[in-house]
């Protein structure tokens, strides 16, 4: 019994002493850490892709909490739900972000596009690009060393045997990392419900483009003529689709039918044409 009392005494005294010390210290040394930051960070998908424009998820969380000017919907991979959650936590309203997907604007596979020299060196597009713009005759085309593939934080890209990357629509979050690392500017983000896509990035004149690559957009304007909604313009010898008009007004695209090089194509049912088996086969057959 005596032991028991001693135990209780010791424990209670210990508890009291540390309680007082800690509580006092807590008051004395308190530092304001905004717990919101952690909450926001918890919500983010932690891909650390930087699509938000900050150095990783933590940095964005900090910025969005502390800086009133930082919008809550900057996280692209998180899509709507994350934007909403961040908006709720920070009390900022979150306009929906438009879902998008990476699109390879090049059909210059090994078969279609000529090489101008044999490259020996570091297997990286940006590095190869420093040598006279890379080994392709077409100076706008995909170099095929897969810098985008290696940089996709979500593993959505794979390199195909034909030397062009393939975007897995299931995995691509639309973060846009690949767009920023591609030295040739081949990748562009496409609205997720786009109906047609131009698979070329060449700003060469038609004859030159054709000489360099059999799948090039020649800038001939047939698609423009065939579009009844004026959604296509020819810019620097390249067809450009205005997706605002295209998506809103067109429900039966016909523009691509006449394209002599199939540089403009319908986006097939699985949302995305490039690299699909049929598409590769089509390119080779030409």
């Amino acid at each position, binding site marked *: 019994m005596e*032991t028991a009392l*001693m*135990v209780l005494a*010791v*424990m209670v005294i*210990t*508890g009291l002493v*540390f309680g007082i*010390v*800690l509580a006092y*210290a*807590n008051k*004395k*040394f*308190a*530092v304001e850490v905004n717990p919101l930051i952690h909450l926001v960070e918890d919500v983010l998908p932690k891909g650390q892709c930087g699509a938000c424009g900050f150095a990783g998820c933590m940095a964005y969380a900090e910025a969005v909490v502390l800086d009133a000017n930082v919008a809550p919907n900057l996280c692209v991979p998180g899509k709507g739900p994350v934007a909403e959650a961040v908006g709720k936590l920070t009390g900022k309203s979150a306009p929906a972000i438009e879902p998008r997907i990476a699109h390879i604007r090049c059909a210059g596979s090994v078969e279609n596009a000529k090489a101008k020299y044999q490259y020996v060196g570091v297997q990286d597009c940006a590095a190869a690009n420093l040598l006279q713009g890379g080994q392709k005759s077409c100076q706008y085309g995909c170099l095929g060393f897969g810098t985008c593939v290696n940089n996709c934080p979500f593993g959505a890209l794979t390199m195909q045997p034909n030397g062009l990357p393939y975007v897995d629509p299931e995995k691509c979050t639309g973060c846009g990392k690949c767009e920023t690392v591609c030295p040739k500017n081949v990748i562009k983000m496409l609205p997720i419900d786009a109906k047609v896509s131009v698979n070329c990035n060449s700003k060469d004149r038609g004859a030159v483009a054709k000489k360099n690559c059999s799948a090039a957009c020649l800038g001939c304007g047939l698609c423009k003529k065939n579009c009844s909604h004026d959604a296509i313009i020819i810019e620097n010898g390249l067809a450009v689709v205005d997706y605002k008009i295209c998506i809103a007004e067109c429900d039966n695209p016909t523009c691509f039918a006449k394209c002599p090089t199939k540089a403009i194509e319908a986006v097939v049912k699985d949302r995305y044409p490039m690299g699909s088996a049929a598409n590769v086969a089509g390119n080779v057959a030409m």
Partner: protein
Amino acid sequence: MEYLTLFISAVIVNNFVLTRFLGLCVFFGVSKNVNASFGMGMAVTAVMTISSILAWLVYNFVLLKFNLTFLTTVVFVLLIASTVQLLEMVIKKHVPTLYNMWGIYLMLIAVNCVVLGVPLLNVESNFTFAKSIVHAMGAGVGFGVAIVLMASLREKLRLADVPKALDGLGVAFILAGMLALSFLGFSGMISL
């Protein structure tokens, strides 16, 4: 001389991390970066020395006196946790850069095997007050040496082509194993 032997033994021959397996969570958690590891080594040394002193006093003047040795665990852990928390608050307030470097790991010291284990070993081996302090400091320095070495190795491996499955923690363990193998060279050098 006796103290020196004790110290050296705790630092290298019986290194707490590599042969006694104490404090591994922090050892693996923080050893990604040499600078942070160096700081952590110092922090552990400091915390361990302070808590060993307090623990020795409490044990010998309270617990032993009243025959309450079965309370050792509870009292020690509370003592250490509170000391660390106090330390954390002080550092956070006054040296924020240091705080940022260790981040959440400072809290991990509070509940870290080596920090509790050394005071426990001290009382278990009936060390005198002075010996306890030397032992604790030796253990802390040993921890520091191990974690800094580990961090430098891991910084080098960061650039290596490590198999994917092993990258990170797996290879860190294998490295620790090799570090321990190398430290076997010191074995038999000092026996207590």
